[in-house]
């Protein structure tokens, strides 16, 4: 054990343990404790004994046997403020429930040894080359790009080889590099391995060995010494031709005769920075990756793939430049660019998937393509299909964090909780020092209404990174659901002064959640108005539109329709400023407010505009059907409302459709559809999330509606529970919502009936 950093302070340890230091000395000692491992360890070891000495009379009495008699320690701070130990929260280690369950992930069938599959290992560089990436890596990457152009030849990507190498090193940490390279190449399904080295003194010399992995034979050792005036691109072109000549393939491919500079870049420096950007993007160091790609473009402003990656990391509009220069890239890269163009510019998800599938057919180990397809399916709500591609990604790279994360969410959407938890726990294993896996796990638990488990996970994320805003806010939301409003508020208050703009803006909105949940609409309005003002004074517009929408909803609940519409107008103007692309926006709320205000023609106009936007975006018209239901209902056209209700796909509504679902259930209850509404509301209330808190009034009203539905369906015990929950929350509501009195009467009748 190390020695104490400050003996004078260290001598106070026992006094500290027994709570005998003055406040000033205590703080001094605690500061010492933060830094002194010796005192910390000693404190830790003696902790239980010290506590007994402070609190247990029989232990204290042991000392008094020897000294002066001990009086009742009533004056001691420790005992008069002693907190009893409450029952500890059961730590639910969900993962242990699934220890015996394994998700089968294995390599796809396609990766058996291909007849024409080549792996290119990293080329050695001169020892004097201290640049990053080294020249050897530049050469091997250029060779891969060049040889990829040969249509009858599959070239294993460097990323794939790297992933296999990492896995091999985990299995056999002491294996020699050369053995690992060979084995990685074999496992990739390659038939041949190309490896080599680069020298620069006295001239550029690139030498290679082409090995047949099945027989172990050396097929050839091509090399190239550059003349003056020749550069690394010329060396790669020459080597590439020699390698193709050595391979026992029939190749008559015009594409393969293009110089490598024509399918990458003419600038070595641009290519170097491009490789640096790729490495940084792979480790999620996005700002640094963006800087590298931008630097590459300074050397070559026609570098298509640099634009492509920037379109993913920085600005989607960069895809235009990627498309413009895509001729100067490999077939694979052209397909990636095309897929992204279809997705971003044509909003053609299917077309994007087609392009990516073509990549996979020709190059089955392209995990980026597999992952991208998974995402397209996920966004389209086709979770089953998305899991197939996420699993394929994981078969290629078992440590792919994003795929694990997404797979967990996909399983959660499919209601397969054990698989979701498996995937997210695997993510935790892969990245234990990152907050995101714990945060995602918290989301999964919250999606199941497992609030305590969600809290534990969000806390775990914050232990890793205390300023991880996503988990900070979600932790607070969970406290609201638990009814621990003070705890929630203290965290929301912290968010209000966050360093970055978005959490600050959101924190100002969140502070209104608890009051709104408790029916304190005026307080909620004051808070959100003050939040809007604070954001405006800072010029913080990042999520300001949501505050206006929130304000609009409160006015709507209070029957203040003009004020609601004014707030929606402000919100919409900010949406335009922030270039929000979602076709629905605030239109649904606007239609509802207009209909409630009796302004049916205007409501219909807004609804028709929404329908057109949905059509253009290729989205189903369900939300438009909802608007028609709402308009018909407020017109008093009950039959028409029910017709539209039947066409409204309530089951397809995700988290963000919560407000619409609640409005529909009101109509369902009003029209006697009690047995239909029970599963809808039960399903919605089985999970908890921030969006529900946003719709504070409809959410709590929903408990009342469910109570009514239960009661009318004959489930009186469940009805009683819901009424009590509802009345408990709105016991100090500042508005005389009619549901409150009705719930009281209904509850009273149920309780009298016994």
């Amino acid at each position, binding site marked *: 054990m190390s020695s104490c950093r400050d003996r004078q302070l260290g001598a106070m340890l026992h006094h500290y343990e027994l709570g005998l230091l003055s406040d000033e000395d205590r703080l001094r000692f*605690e500061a010492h404790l933060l830094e002194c491992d010796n005192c910390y360890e000693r404190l830790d070891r003696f902790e239980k004994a010290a506590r007994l000495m402070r609190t247990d009379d029989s232990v204290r009495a042991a000392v008094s046997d*020897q000294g*002066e008699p001990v009086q009742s320690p009533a004056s*001691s701070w420790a005992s008069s403020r002693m907190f*009893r*130990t409450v029952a500890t929260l059961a730590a639910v280690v969900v993962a242990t429930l699934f220890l015996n369950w394994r998700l089968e992930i294995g390599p796809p069938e396609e990766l058996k040894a291909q007849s024409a599959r080549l792996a290119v290992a990293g080329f050695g560089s001169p020892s004097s080359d201290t640049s990053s990436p080294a020249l050897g890596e530049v050469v091997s990457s250029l060779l891969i790009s060049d040889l990829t152009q040969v249509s009858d030849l599959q070239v294993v990507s460097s990323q794939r080889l790297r992933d296999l190498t990492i896995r091999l090193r985990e299995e056999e940490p002491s294996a020699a590099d050369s053995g690992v390279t060979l084995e990685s190449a074999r496992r990739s399904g390659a038939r041949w391995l190309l490896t080599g080295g680069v020298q620069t003194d006295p001239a550029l010399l690139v030498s290679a060995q082409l090995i047949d992995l099945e027989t172990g034979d050396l097929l050839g050792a091509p090399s190239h010494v550059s003349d003056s005036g020749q550069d690394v691109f010329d060396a790669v072109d020459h080597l590439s031709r020699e390698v193709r000549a050595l391979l026992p393939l029939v190749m008559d491919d015009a594409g393969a005769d293009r110089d490598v500079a024509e399918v990458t870049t003419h600038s070595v420096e641009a290519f170097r920075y491009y490789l640096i950007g790729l490495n940084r993007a792979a480790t999620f160091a996005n700002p640094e990756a963006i800087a590298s790609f931008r630097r590459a473009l300074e050397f070559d402003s026609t570098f298509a793939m640099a634009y492509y990656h920037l379109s993913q990391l920085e600005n989607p509009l960069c895809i235009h430049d990627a498309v413009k220069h895509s001729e100067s890239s490999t077939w694979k890269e052209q397909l990636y660019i095309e897929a992204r163009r279809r997705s971003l510019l044509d909003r053609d998800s299917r077309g994007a998937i087609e392009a990516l599938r073509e990549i996979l057919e020709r190059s089955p180990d392209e995990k980026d393509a597999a992952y991208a397809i998974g995402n397209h399916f996920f966004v389209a709500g086709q979770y089953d299909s998305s899991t197939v591609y996420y699993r394929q990604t994981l078969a290629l790279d078992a440590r792919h964090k994003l795929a694990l994360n997404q797979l967990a969410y996909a399983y959660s959407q499919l209601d397969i909780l054990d698989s979701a938890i498996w995937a997210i726990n695997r993510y935790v294993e892969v990245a234990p020092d990152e907050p995101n896996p714990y945060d995602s796990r918290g989301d999964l638990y919250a999606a199941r209404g497992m609030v305590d488990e969600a809290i534990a996970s969000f806390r775990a994320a914050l*232990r890793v*990174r205390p300023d991880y805003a996503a988990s900070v806010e979600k932790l607070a939301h969970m406290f609201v659901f638990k009814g621990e409003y003070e705890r929630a508020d203290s965290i929301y208050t912290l968010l209000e002064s966050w360093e970055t703009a978005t959490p600050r803006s959101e924190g100002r909105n969140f502070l209104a959640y608890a009051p709104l949940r408790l029916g304190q609409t005026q307080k909620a309005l004051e808070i959100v108005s003050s939040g809007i003002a604070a954001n405006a004074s800072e010029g913080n517009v990042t999520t300001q539109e949501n505050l206006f929408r929130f304000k609009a909803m409160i006015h709507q609940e209070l029957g203040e329709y003009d004020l609601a519409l004014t707030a929606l107008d402000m919100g919409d103007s900010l949406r335009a400023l922030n270039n929000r692309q979602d076709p629905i926006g605030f239109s649904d709320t606007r239609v509802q407010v207009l209909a409630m205000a009796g302004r049916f023609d205007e409501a219909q106009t807004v609804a028709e505009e929404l329908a057109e936007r949905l059509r253009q975006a290729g989205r189903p018209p369900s939300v438009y059907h909802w608007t028609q239901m709402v308009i018909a209902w407020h017109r008093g056209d009950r039959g028409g409302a029910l017709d539209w209700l039947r066409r409204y796909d309530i089951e397809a509504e995700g988290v963000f459709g919560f407000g619409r679902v609640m409005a529909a259930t009101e109509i369902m209850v009003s029209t006697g559809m009690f047995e239909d509404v029970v599963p809808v509301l039960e399903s919605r209330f089985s999970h908890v999330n921030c969006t529900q808190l946003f719709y504070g009034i409809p959410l709590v009203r929903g408990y009342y509606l469910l109570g009514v539905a239960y009661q009318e369906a004959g489930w009186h015990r469940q009805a009683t529970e819901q009424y009590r929950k509802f009345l408990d929350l709105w016991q100090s509501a500042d508005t005389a919502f009619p549901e409150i009195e009705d719930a009281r009467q209904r509850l009273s009748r149920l309780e009298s009936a016994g």
Partner: protein
Amino acid sequence: MDLNELYTKARAGDKDAEKSLFHHLSVRLQKIANHKVWNSGDAEDIAQDALMYISQEYRTVEIRASFAAWACKVLDNRTLNYIKKKRVRRDAAPLLPQGQPVGPDDEEMALKTALRNCLRQVAKNTPRYARILNLHFQGYGTDDVCEKLEIEPAHAYTILSRARSILALCLRKGGFDV
């Protein structure tokens, strides 16, 4: 661990230093909080509250003396807030559900027995230790104790520190003839 050094590096943008700093703090602050409130769940809450505040403020606040002292002050404030709120809630409702006893487990019983035995032995052989403790248990502060015993506070610390070492050794060995 030199926290000032880590703090300076983290403030200058060194991400590794920042990570180390907060990892270290999260463990230590929770231990200190637990020492104050004797409830690991609440201690975690308090420590996390403090950490969130520290993570937001440390880059901008001017810390003249020591980072450790500032961090402890932050924790202390949060603990006081927590205790105030808990007192209000406790006044409103009992902390424990009625009729649900919480008693010591076997391990605690064994420790109590061992502790009593060792304390008797240590107190017998270092009577000034016993006297100081007894006076404290009766509610006397350090200044009063030192005045009664006519010793300096530093001396009182030393007496307890030495006795503690013997006590800890006794507990580890399961008792001995002192």
